[in-house]
């Protein structure tokens, strides 16, 4: 009996090893372990053995059955894994082919700069507002203490629509509008388009952007102006940014200063600032004895050119997508 068991075992394991598909393995299971299988038949034959042999034969056959079941399961799993792998192999992709995607939307580099500037001032407690580009001489000049005969009023420099209306030449006009409508304290910033009669070249466009802001309160000081603009410069140009304030002249501020930022080894002039001239406050209905105010106006386009290494301002307006997608 023992030899018989051993012979069946050897043969079954050999055939199992040779089986290459799950079906063949299933056939082997039926042949050996099925109802009419060889091992099943041997197990049945145990009853006919002498009582002294029954126990040993029974346990040897049970062991054989367990071993075969184990081997079949293992073999089946291995074969299934191989079949699945073959199936998946046929689904292989070439990962180096281009990905499918909608185009990537890009901010215009000036649009992005404008948003950054708005965020910086909002974080410093400024309210971000907007104003008209079509302005009147009243707001663009007169209320900024720029009298009718001032050289800045020269029609050579501004686009006029009629005797009184023009395209704003600076965003400070928005300050005037806000100051007239509200009461102090105020802390307001605006970013927008301004217009000047400039011939187009690599550094001039008739349309450009300006950020303009002001703060009115009891006890607003020139030192606050320096502090706020230095903070602005650090946020926009990096923590190392240094700011320089040089005396200058604007009809609507007194004292007045020009602002420059130290960037990549040189001073970059970014705009003008100062304490609002008392007459400007008076014209806005604000008592200049009680309140003081600072104001500033900075260019957006030319500093952005330097910051991003753009050498021709016309690139901003040409909108070649190869340019736009670089930012």
């Amino acid at each position: 009996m023992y030899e018989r068991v051993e012979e069946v075992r050897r043969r079954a394991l050999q055939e199992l090893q040779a089986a290459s598909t799950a079906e063949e393995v299933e056939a082997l299971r039926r042949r050996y372990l099925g109802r009419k299988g060889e091992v099943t038949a041997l197990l049945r034959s145990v009853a006919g053995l002498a009582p002294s042999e029954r126990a040993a034969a029974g346990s040897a056959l049970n062991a054989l059955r367990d071993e075969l079941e184990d081997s079949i399961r293992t073999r089946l799993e291995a074969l299934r894994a191989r079949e699945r792998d073959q199936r998946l192999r046929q689904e292989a992709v070439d990962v180096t082919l281009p990905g499918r995607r909608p185009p990537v939307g890009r901010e215009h580099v000036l649009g992005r700069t404008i948003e950054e500037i708005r965020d910086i001032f909002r974080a410093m407690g400024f309210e971000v507002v907007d104003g008209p580009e079509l302005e009147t001489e009243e707001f663009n000049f007169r209320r900024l203490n720029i009298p009718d005969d001032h050289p800045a009023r020269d029609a050579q420099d501004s686009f006029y629509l009629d005797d009184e209306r023009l395209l704003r030449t600076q965003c400070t006009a928005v300050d005037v509008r806000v100051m007239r409508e509200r009461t102090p304290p105020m802390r307001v910033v605006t970013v927008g388009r301004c217009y000047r009669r400039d011939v187009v070249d690599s550094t001039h466009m008739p349309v450009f952007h300006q950020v303009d802001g002001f703060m009115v309160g009891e006890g607003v000081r020139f030192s606050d102006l320096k502090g706020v603009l230095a903070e602005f410069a650090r946020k926009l140009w990096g923590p190392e940014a240094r700011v320089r304030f040089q005396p200058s002249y604007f009809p609507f501020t007194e004292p007045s200063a020009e602002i420059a930022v130290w960037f990549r080894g040189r001073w970059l002039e970014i705009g003008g600032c100062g304490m609002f001239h008392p007459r400007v406050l008076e014209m806005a209905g604000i008592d200049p004895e009680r309140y003081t105010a600072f104001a500033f106006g900075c260019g957006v386009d030319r500093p952005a050119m330097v910051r991003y290494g753009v050498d021709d301002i016309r690139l901003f307006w040409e909108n070649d997508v190869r340019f736009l997608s670089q930012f």
Partner: protein
Amino acid sequence: MRVPWSWIAELVEFPTPQDPAAWEERFPMLGLGVESVDRTGDDWVFELETTTNRPDWLGVVGVAREVAAACGGRLRLPAVELLESDPPAREVAWVEVLQPGLCHRYVGRVVVDVQVGPSPAWMVDRLERCGLRSVNNVVDVTNYVMLETGQPLHAFDLDRLAGGGVVVRRARAGERLVTLDGQERALPEGALVIADRERVVALGGILGGQDTEIRPQTRRVLLESAWFHPVAVRRTARALGIRTEGSTRHERGGDPERACSAAARAAQLVQQLAGGRVLRGELDVYPDPEPARQVTLRPQRLRHVLGVEIPEPEVEDVLRRLGFAPRGDGTRWVVAVPSHRRDVEREEDLIEEVARIWGYDRIPQTLPVDVMAAGAVSPDLVAERRVREALLRAGLTEVLTLTLLHPGELEAVGIPEGHPLRDAIPLRNPLTRDHTHLRTTLLPSLVEVLRTNRVRGNLDVHVFEIGRVFRNSSAGWEERKVVGIARIGRALEGGWNLPPEAVETSFYHLKGTVEAVLEALHVPGWDLRPEGQPWLHPYRAASLWLGTGPVGWVGELHPDVCERFDLHGRAYVAELELEPLARAARTTPQYRPLPRTPATERDLAVVVAEGVAAADVVRAIRKAAGPVLERCEPFDVYTGPQVPAGHRSLALRLVFRDPSRTLTSEEVDGILDHLRQRLREELGAQFR
């Protein structure tokens, strides 16, 4: 203004030796911009950029005064010692001012028996360093004194002045003058001129006339040193297209006091260089002398405005060094303003003077102490930002285009004559022929962006702009913000192995972009209606309706326009008004509970005639199904052999749900039966 350092050094007694190189940095800290520095020999010549409020800086003395004030030096003005002879000047010449409003002061000096000739080398050299050419010793003196003091002067040949004198008046109609540059000029009527008894001899403050100029044979000289009105000088100079050293200085507004001292200084130098005798006294017409000005300065105000404590003695010291004369106690100074600083009118001007000389860089950086509300963004800008972000997320690239255009551009994109968008507001003084009007729509500039890119081989262009347009309406000129969109080329990158219709931009891609914006803003109740625009494909165009009116248009750009702009493909464009969208936007959408009951899905294929829009079918289904229909979306459109000619089959996915209970299959089937019945009745629908 070119200023040689050697000249400054002559006028300032320095407390310590100065390195001119350091002044390249120091001048700007005083408000004097340095445009360039030339080293000539051992001298440094600074090209200074001066601000319009400081006429005194257009003379070396004015600059030297700043230098002295800044470094604690002393200003040494050249001593004027005149040897005058009889007869008195007024006996040989006369000056009359008919326009005292335009000429506050006119000072004349007479020098006789001069020998006109070349100037000495030092004079020629100094003028050259300042950028002027030597003419002769008399003319050179007038230029030299102008450079020194900032006061423009002119020299007339007195023997050639008819009647032996000059009158300041306005030009009469038809008067002409041959100016020093040899040009004969027709004078604008009313221009400020200097004339003799017979004719105009000079343009006041701008340029002299050739007839009365100093020549080798000139013996008697009338020197002019006057204060002309800045605006009068500017207008005439501009009208004639002339700009001279003199006009630049007069336009800034001079100092009437200086006119007199400069005349004496010039007479002295003429005598020194050209010999002759200075006749006694000046011819001085100054009917209405300007009173000296006094301005109050409070130390407390100074501190309050600047945010820094400057010791009072230092304040007084700065003011004195600049030529001001402060008097008073510790609570207020009354400051006498020198005549050369007429720009100083109020307390703030003095505060700036103190800050400037004491040093802007020494004022600390502080942050405002005022307690205020946190920063905010105005609601219209919030909506604008949301629209912008939605478009960026939808894969569109932001562009910026000029606000100015030529009306031909409106015509070129297919806006017909008489259309309101053709009514662009013109600029009264355009600079170039292509920028003459304000844009009424973003369409021309966006089509131009497509063109620019396509001709350069950038085939896929998906752009948007949020910008302003200007319209001429019955209510006047309006300024509005609009959103413009333009798309062309592939809407999907990497679409290899895909059919073109899955890859190329279509009307539905454009519509999807618009939907994305509306969804980002949570705009309820909008509707796209098939309505055309002249610049759009007549059968691929729609209006966006919001509430009771259209707020924009979307569609395929008309093939004719595509062809005109060499786009070589179909382009899709839209323009939406931003303000109505911003108004309709819900900034704080409210939570709706998520459903807890299961949904039941059914597909329905509806065959309708070609003219029936998908939206009509959906609307009819929604109406018939009632609130248990949660969603109803077309997912396939079929025309072909299996549907009758002139019809199409629309497959819709219907999702039913009752939030309070589970719908049974029989109920849903019942609703579907009802639906089919209603669609048959209302739209003549058939079912597959």
